């Protein structure tokens, strides 16, 4: 037939190294990275963790959304630095002054540590998000023995955010065409977004309802459903799970131990 797709064939790509790592390993990796960064107290270790997570992300794939999300988190971390540098309650030592305003060492240190931890988690989760798709997770969970209905409910929760964002993008585009608000600054964006939040939610719910009807019609809860063997081969999944879980247990144990010791 005659329709011509204007998109290039993206999904036919070859299997990459990160496709050999299963979703649960990736989730455990996020957990371990988070625990490590909270266990660490010196900035060199945080820098090491950030570098490690960042490299993983660089060697998997970087999309424009990742860059945007990173930019936004860096912006938040920067504001945190400024605020803590100025107003942290334990501030004593002036590190430097800008236009007569003093920035304090304690606050900056505190904010840097906190900011690094957040960044580690964001980078590690970013790695998970860009290297797995909702459908991969769904298949994996179903093969791990969950019923498809349960998987679907879990996945529709993951699905709702991109859906809302997609709808939001369309609304913003419509507002640009139908309106005069240029939506360049954050304030202009907020002003255009706030009044449409309720219609946005209604629209998204409406879509979920249509999808749910259609899935029932397509028989997704048919008792005869038999999941196909996934064609992706995960390497050493079992070993990774055990290893990463052990690291997590050790880290949590150690943290608890130091806490308890600290009490006495």
């Amino acid at each position, binding site marked *: 037939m005659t*329709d011509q797709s204007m*998109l290039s064939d993206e999904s036919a790509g070859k299997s990459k190294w990160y496709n050999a790592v299963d979703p649960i390993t990736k989730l455990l990796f996020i957990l371990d990275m988070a625990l490590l960064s909270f266990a660490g107290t010196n900035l060199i270790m945080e820098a090491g963790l950030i570098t490690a997570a960042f490299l993983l992300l660089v060697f998997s794939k970087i999309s424009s959304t990742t860059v945007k999300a990173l930019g936004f988190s860096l912006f938040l971390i920067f504001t945190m630095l400024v605020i803590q540098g100025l107003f942290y309650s334990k501030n004593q030592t002036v590190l430097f002054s800008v236009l007569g305003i003093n920035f304090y060492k304690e606050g900056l240190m505190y904010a840097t540590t906190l900011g690094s931890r957040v960044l580690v988690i964001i980078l590690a989760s970013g790695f998970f998000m860009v290297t797995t798709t909702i459908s991969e997770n769904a298949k994996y969970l179903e093969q791990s023995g969950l019923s498809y209905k349960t998987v679907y409910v879990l996945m529709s929760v993951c699905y709702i955010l991109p859906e809302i964002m997609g709808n939001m993008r369309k609304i913003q585009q419509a507002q640009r065409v139908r309106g005069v608000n240029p939506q360049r600054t954050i304030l202009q964006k907020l002003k255009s977004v706030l009044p449409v939040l309720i219609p946005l939610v209604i629209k998204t719910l409406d879509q979920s309802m249509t999808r749910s009807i259609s899935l029932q019609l397509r028989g997704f809860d048919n008792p005869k459903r038999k999941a*196909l063997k996934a064609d992706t081969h995960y390497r050493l999944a079992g070993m990774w799970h055990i290893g990463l879980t052990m690291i997590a247990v050790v880290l949590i144990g150690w943290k608890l131990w130091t806490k308890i010791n600290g009490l006495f």
Partner: protein
Amino acid sequence: MDEDKRIVLENLNVRYSGMETSQLKNININTPIGQIIGIVGNSHSGKSTLCRVLAGIIPKIISATISGTYTIAGRSPMDDWTAFNTSTGVVLQNPAGQLSGLADTVADELAFDLINQGTSADVISKRVANVAAQMGLTDQLRQKPESLSGGQMQRLAIATAIITQPQILIMDDPTSEMDPVGRQQFFHWLTTVKDTTVFIVSSEIDDLCEVADSIWIMSEGELVSQGSPQDVFNHLSPEWQIPTPTVYQMAEKMNWRLTGDVFPVAAEELKEAFDATN
């Protein structure tokens, strides 16, 4: 005739909860299965509600106050929902809403219905290839479903409905986003469908008259007319606000009549009326 070979709707009334008036009023039909039935009507005529009843969406998925009976080939959605649902293929008005959202590729999206029925892997890959070829989606099999154009998305929706080889196919305006050539190919494909009862809501009257065995006209929740295309379009009431097919308009302008003093509605009939006059 045998109950197993008929579509029977008796005194069917449907009212959505929270609504004051009924969406379907006293629908009565008794007609053989295996036909292509074109359903025609304007906004709020009840045609989409009728599709929902025919597919069993009402009352199995969407609740509504419903009275009367509905059986097709002896089966009712109320008796054995899984069996009934397995025997139907449904294309909803909004093709994008039909996607599972859990498939990375068009091929995965197509396989979904078969996996649900527990079909074996080699049958699945054969059927996916076959249905994709029928709907002109072979080159798109490895693409993401969201990347398809509106017309392609509708063909994917149709493909997911026919891949399970249902005996009953229910389609709500399946060609609205296709270009003329795509639409022509779809209606041509429809004539090749065998051993299937097809309900198709469409505003493409010219095409319906070429392929449909029977036309149902809906107006304000009532089934106001049913019969062969020729019969129905020769007896339109202006109240229904339904246009006549181009063939009819042409023949009427030229006064080309068939025996029985009726105007033709399909190309073949036009030729016959033309030859009889000239």
